[in-house]
C-alpha cells in the first residue's frame, strides 16, 4: 500500500509576487511608494470596501485585495474632507494587503499618503473594477489551488490529458516516448503535480526542477525538449483519463466490454480510469492511444459497448415493447 498522498496548499502569495506574476495581465502600475511587498495576501479574493468606507468595519475582509471602483471613488469624493480622511485611515488601519484603484484613476494625494503611512501599497489598473475582480480572482484561485504530487507520467494524446500510472519498471516512460512519436505531447515524467483550482477539474504539470526531463532505463536521463522539440512539449494539461499499467499476470482481470465505470479520486475529483496489462507482443502505446480516443468518444455521449449491445438485441428480436430501453 503506498503511503497516503497528502494534499498540500501552496503558501499565500505576497503582494510583490502577485504584482510580478500578474501585474502585466491585470494592467497594474504602482502608485506611490514601493512598500508592503512582502505582506501576504491571505485570501485568494478581491473585496469592494464600500461598507468599510461607510464606517461599518465589522466582518471586514482584511485578508483580501481591496479594489476602489466607481462607487467607492464617488462615495469618497462626496464626503467632506475630514470625514474622508478619517474613514480612509480607519479602513487602512485594518491592514489589508494592498489597494487597487480601477479605471486608471489615481488616489488623491492625501489618501495615498494615508495608505502608504499605514504600510499599504497602492496600485492602479486600466481595467474596470468588474473585469479586474473577475480576472484577478481566477488567477488567485489558480495560485492558491491545493495540489498533490503523484507518481506517474502525463501525456497529451490528441488533446486529452492522460496520466500513466503503475509499478516501477513497467514501462511508463518508454510508452510515453512512443506516444510522443505519434503526436502526443509530454507534460510530465515520474512526478506529476496535480492541482485543483475550482473543485471540479484537475490540471497536471511537472515539477519545475524536473522540467522536460525523463528517464529511460539504459539510456539515462534525457531532455525531451532538446531531443524532440517544442512540438512535443506541453506545460500544463487538464487530466481527463488515468491509465493503470498492470503486469501481465493481471491480463485476465481486465474489463472486457469497456463499460465498467472505474474511477480514481484525486483532490476530491473523480477521474475515469482504465486498466491495461503490459505483455510482450502488445503495443502498449497503441492501446493507451486507443483508450484515450475511446474516452473522448465516450465524453460525447457515445457508449460503444451499449450501442453494440442495442444493435445485437434488435437483431435477435429480444427487444419487444417492454424492453425498449434495456441496458447491460
Amino acid at each position, binding site marked *: 500500500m503506498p503511503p497516503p498522498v*497528502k494534499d498540500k496548499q501552496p503558501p499565500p502569495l505576497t503582494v510583490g509576487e502577485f504584482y510580478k506574476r500578474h501585474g502585466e495581465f491585470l494592467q497594474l502600475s504602482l502608485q506611490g511608494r514601493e512598500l508592503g511587498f512582502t505582506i501576504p495576501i491571505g485570501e485568494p479574493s478581491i473585496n469592494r470596501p464600500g461598507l468599510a468606507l461607510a464606517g461599518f468595519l465589522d466582518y471586514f475582509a482584511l485578508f483580501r485585495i481591496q479594489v476602489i471602483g466607481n462607487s467607492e471613488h464617488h462615495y469618497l469624493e462626496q464626503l467632506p474632507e475630514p470625514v474622508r480622511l478619517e474613514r480612509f485611515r480607519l479602513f487602512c488601519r485594518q491592514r489589508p494587503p494592498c489597494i487597487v484603484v480601477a479605471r486608471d484613476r489615481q488616489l488623491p494625494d492625501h489618501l495615498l499618503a494615508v495608505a502608504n503611512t499605514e504600510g499599504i501599497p497602492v496600485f492602479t489598473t486600466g481595467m474596470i473594477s468588474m473585469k479586474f475582480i473577475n480576472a484577478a480572482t481566477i488567477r488567485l484561485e489558480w495560485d492558491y489551488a491545493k495540489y498533490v504530487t503523484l*507518481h506517474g507520467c502525463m501525456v497529451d494524446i490528441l488533446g486529452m490529458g492522460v496520466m500513466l500510472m503503475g509499478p516501477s519498471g513497467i514501462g511508463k516512460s518508454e510508452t510515453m516516448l512512443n506516444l510522443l512519436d505519434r503526436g502526443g505531447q509530454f507534460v510530465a515524467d*515520474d*512526478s506529476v503535480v496535480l492541482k485543483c483550482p475550482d473543485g471540479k477539474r484537475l490540471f497536471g504539470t511537472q515539477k519545475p*526542477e524536473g522540467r522536460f526531463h525523463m528517464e529511460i532505463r539504459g539510456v539515462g536521463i534525457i531532455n525531451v525538449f532538446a531531443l524532440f522539440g517544442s512540438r512535443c512539449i506541453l506545460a500544463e494539461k487538464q487530466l481527463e483519463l488515468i491509465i493503470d499499467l498492470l503486469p501481465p499476470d493481471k491480463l485476465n482481470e481486465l474489463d472486457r466490454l469497456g463499460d465498467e465505470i472505474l474511477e480514481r479520486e484525486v483532490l476530491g475529483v473523480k477521474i475515469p480510469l482504465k486498466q491495461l496489462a503490459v505483455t510482450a507482443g502488445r503495443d502498449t502505446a497503441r492501446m493507451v492511444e486507443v483508450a484515450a480516443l475511446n474516452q473522448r468518444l465516450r465524453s460525447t455521449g457515445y457508449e460503444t459497448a451499449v450501442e453494440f449491445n442495442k444493435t445485437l438485441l434488435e437483431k435477435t428480436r429480444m427487444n419487444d415493447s417492454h424492453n425498449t430501453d434495456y441496458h447491460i
Partner: protein
Amino acid sequence: MLKKDFTILNKMGLHARPAALFVKKANTFQSEIWVEKDDENVNGKSIMALMMLAAGYNDSITLQVEGADEAKAMEELGAIINAGFNEL
C-alpha cells in the same frame, strides 16, 4: 511495512550520482519503496522522482518500505543513506 527517518549526511545531498546509486539498489528489491521529505512522498525506485525531491545536506527524509523483502531493503538502503551515498 517499515518506516524510518534518516538525515542526509553528505555535503552535496541527494544529487544525481547518489540518486542513481540509491535507485539501482532499490530496484533489486521486490518491496515498494517510498522516500518522503517535507510531506512529499516519492517512489524510491525512480531516479527522476528522487532528484526532484531536492534533498540537501542535513535534510531529514523518511524511508518507507513494504513487501516480502522489506527488512533487507530497509537495512541495505538505510546503510547507503548513512554512508552518505559513499560521498563522505
